[in-house]
């Protein structure tokens, strides 16, 4: 009866763990292969845009636009284009992260120290030469450390794209749910938490030695090579792409659009609000300048575990336990947002000035009062900014959890793909992109306004 009970205890056997090494390898392979291409392509596009070469501005716009297509949407697109399997996953991650990195690299290059670059320009060097002798070496450290930071994020995304047929641990996870084999689901989730924690650790090491990121390059090149045949089946891919054009929606589907948009925004907003409400007390408990270590440390670990599981994985579990619909989506986003926001809030609380807090404590106020009268108002600015960022992220995530049955525009997109209505699918991809772009613009404007407020405060 109680479905949640069926997830416990997790299923453990050496044989099963051994059998899972292949999908785990596939997931890592997709992430490494995707990031490998993304670093190369992102570097080229970023240099082009950042060095002000002809057409650089158009490239910058394109990068920004592609970045607004959520990774899972891209994955569905790629599964249709190149077929089920790691090749599709690699391609999806490569496109998504090429755009993301290209834009960041361009921003890094545009903000490079002015003097050495001017001096190079003064020798009469061509723009591309200036980029090679100035921009790239000046920013090499940031480029490398950012590359690895994105690898961590790509690993999570790699699990996600697996869920729509990209292969790897994501596909396994969906398999266990479909087979009603929930104890194995729990095992896979635990494996995932361990995997993300390991990569987190490696990222910490790499912060001190950024050049070590070079290990990704041979692994990535190998991963790309192994997935090469399907990815290079370009004639098939272009043929499929042609069938997606022009995008088109039947009139009854157009009538459904307001409801779909509403559901997606409802999932994003609900997930953010619940996450925020839970993250404030948890963040306070995790703040080392407020709570004693025996409380803050376990709370911190708990938040990290919540955050390690991507929304889609939460969504898969919740859709199984409480059923299809926006409610599962809201909760899925809320769980992940609680973890992510809780950690950021804790950091914001730890960064507040010490003097006003000491003054409050000197009045003999109890801890709870100090938290409410001191910590909360003092950290309000950063808290609001983090929350808005999370909302932007959650709009993407809401379209993603839709794919696995949480409703909204994501579900419509997935249904169209399953029924081979490619022109409809294309329309939903474009609509998703529009929604994300509009929310980003609105939220960005709001954030800039708040920055101004902080300056005046």
């Amino acid at each position, binding site marked *: 009866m109680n479905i949640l009970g069926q997830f416990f205890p997790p299923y453990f056997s050496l044989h099963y763990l051994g059998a899972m090494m292949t999908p785990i390898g596939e997931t890592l392979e997709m992430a490494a292969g995707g990031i490998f291409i993304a670093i190369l392509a992102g570097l080229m596009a970023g240099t082009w845009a950042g060095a002000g070469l002809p057409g650089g501005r158009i490239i910058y716009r394109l990068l920004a636009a592609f970045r607004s297509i959520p990774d899972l949407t891209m994955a569905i697109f790629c599964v249709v284009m190149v077929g089920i399997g790691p090749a599709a996953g690699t391609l999806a991650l490569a496109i998504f992260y090429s755009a993301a990195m290209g834009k960041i690299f361009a921003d890094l290059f545009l903000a490079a120290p002015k003097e050495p670059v001017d001096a*190079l320009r003064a*020798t*009469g*060097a*061509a723009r591309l030469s200036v980029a090679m002798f100035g921009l790239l070496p*000046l920013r090499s450290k940031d480029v490398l450390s950012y590359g690895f930071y994105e690898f961590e994020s790509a690993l999570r995304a790699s699990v996600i794209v697996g869920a729509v047929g990209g292969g790897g641990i994501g596909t396994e996870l969906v398999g266990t749910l479909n087979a009603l084999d929930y104890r194995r689901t729990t095992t896979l989730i635990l494996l995932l938490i361990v995997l993300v924690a390991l990569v987190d650790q490696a990222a910490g090491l790499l912060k001190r030695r950024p050049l070590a990121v070079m290990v990704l390059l041979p692994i990535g090149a190998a991963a790309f090579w192994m997935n090469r045949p399907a990815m290079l089946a370009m004639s098939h891919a272009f043929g499929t792409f042609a069938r997606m054009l022009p995008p088109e929606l039947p009139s009854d589907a157009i009538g459904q659009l307001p409801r779909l948009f509403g559901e997606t925004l409802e999932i994003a907003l609900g997930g953010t609000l619940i996450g925020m409400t839970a993250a404030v007390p948890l963040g306070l408990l995790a703040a080392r300048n407020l709570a004693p270590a025996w409380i803050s440390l376990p709370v911190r670990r708990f938040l990290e575990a919540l955050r390690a599981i991507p929304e889609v994985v939460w969504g898969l579990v919740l859709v199984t336990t409480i059923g299809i619909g926006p409610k599962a989506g809201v909760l899925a986003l809320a769980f992940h947002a609680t973890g992510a926001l809780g950690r950021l809030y804790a950091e914001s609380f730890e960064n507040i000035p010490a003097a006003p807090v000491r003054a409050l404590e000197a009045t003999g106020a109890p801890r709870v009062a100090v938290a409410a009268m001191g910590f909360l108002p003092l950290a309000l600015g950063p808290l609001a900014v983090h929350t808005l960022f999370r909302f932007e992220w959650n709009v993407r995530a809401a379209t993603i959890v839709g794919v696995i049955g949480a409703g909204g525009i994501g579900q419509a997109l997935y249904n169209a793909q399953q029924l081979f209505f490619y022109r409809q699918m294309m329309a939903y991809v474009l609509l998703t992109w529009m929604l994300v772009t509009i929310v980003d613009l609105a939220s960005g404007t709001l954030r800039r306004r708040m920055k101004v407020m902080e300056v005046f405060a």
Partner: protein
Amino acid sequence: MVRVAGEDVSRLRGRALRHLRSRVAVVSQRHDLVDELSVLQNVMAGALGRWSSWRALRFLLRPSAAEVEEARAALARVGLAHKLHARTAGLSGGEHQRVAIARALVQRPVLLLADEPVASLDPERSDQILDLLTGLARESNVTLLCSLHQTELAHRHFGRIVELREGRIAMDSSDPAFLQEGI
């Protein structure tokens, strides 16, 4: 309007501007080397004006013996030949500046602009750097134009002195009226 070598600088664009820039080398008090490159690469950056981007890329991947030799010769003229393969970030302030001068030499300019090259140096170092600059200009037959704040340094090192006050020429040592008055 600013004319350099008969060309109106503000109207030049693209290739023509690059060509003019490659003929005018600039040395300033700012530390405008790229710390992440080696000394060799920073020095040869002076050649970028006459190199194509492909040649620049080839040099970064595999510098030819002739290129290494050119850099070594330029560094030898500023007394830093032993720093050819050193890390730029590890150089002292004075060495930094001499590497920047070596880069200007590799540029093979017709005009060398030195923008307050000694602003942050002690008097002894200032004399050394100005000796170096004027000596190099004489050897290579390059016009050297140097801005300075200290008049006594200017008198000690330069043949012609133009004094600027509030954006106007207050005094030009090549002016016959000035020559009559004597120094």
